[in-house]
């Protein structure tokens, strides 16, 4: 077993109202960043785990997302990176 560091991004599901993201986008517009179209505020998780290889580490984290880390009704997740630690 090797040690891996898996990063996950969890964001509000596309199409659902994201008032927090909208408030941040409005603030950026106020600062003059008029080119900003949308902002999505989510969570970034770093999971340090043992696994046989990188694929197994990613597969395990995907299952963690499905079962706990992301709400299946309101959130989407993406694996941002898998690194040996």
């Amino acid at each position: 077993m090797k040690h891996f560091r898996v990063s996950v991004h969890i964001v509000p599901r596309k199409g659902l109202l994201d008032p927090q993201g909208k408030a941040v986008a409005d603030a950026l517009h106020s600062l003059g960043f008029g080119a900003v179209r949308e902002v999505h505020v989510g969570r970034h998780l770093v999971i340090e785990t043992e696994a046989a290889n990188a694929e197994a580490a990613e597969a395990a984290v995907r299952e963690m997302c499905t079962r706990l880390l992301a709400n299946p009704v309101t959130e989407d997740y993406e694996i941002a990176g898998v690194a040996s630690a």
Partner: protein
Amino acid sequence: MKFGIVSFPGSNCDDDAVFAAADVLGQPAVKLWHKDHDLQGSDVIILPGGFSYGDYLRAGAIARFSPIMQEVAAHAQRGGPVIGICNGFQIACEAGLLPGALMRNAGLKFLSMPVTIRVENTGTRWTALCRDGQRLTMPIAHGEGRYTVDHATLERLEGEGLVVFRYVDAAGEASPEANVNGSLDNIAGVRNAAGNVVGLMPHPERAMDALLGSTDGLVLFESVLAAVHA
């Protein structure tokens, strides 16, 4: 009839629920610690409001792993009455006892105020004594109460009458203005198919005494009392 009120670390309305059951209704009420495995013979379970586990990860997400929740799920499966109030509603959704999820209020503000809700379904253990369309005023106190569900499930909820409460205005209409937190279809509360599990964001247990501004929560507790005695 014995009420069991689950105390999670961070629950803060468990005492209000005990007050409602014991002081107002005069029924035996026991607090159930989240680490227990025993409902202590409770006939009715209340998942109270608060901030269980500090709302870490998502509101209600961690509480569903508390040991007592296995017993609560089994109780619900057997048809035992369960009500999830506020954070308890969030927990019930996370635990899969009820459909949907509660997201950040559309206006981003934590809302602490009285609201009016309309009874949309009287086929539950908790609304059996309500009149169809009856309006109830009770407080809300939440930052994450925007009810959300996928389109297919929403159609099922509306089609099968599983929406129990909606936010309404003074005229009794489910208007955008009345929809304080931006919930889908003004939904304030839902039920499971069997009608023994109900969840809602407003606080009936804090609307049990005229001194506290409203007694409109009483009818929910009287309904479940009548249902269990029947």
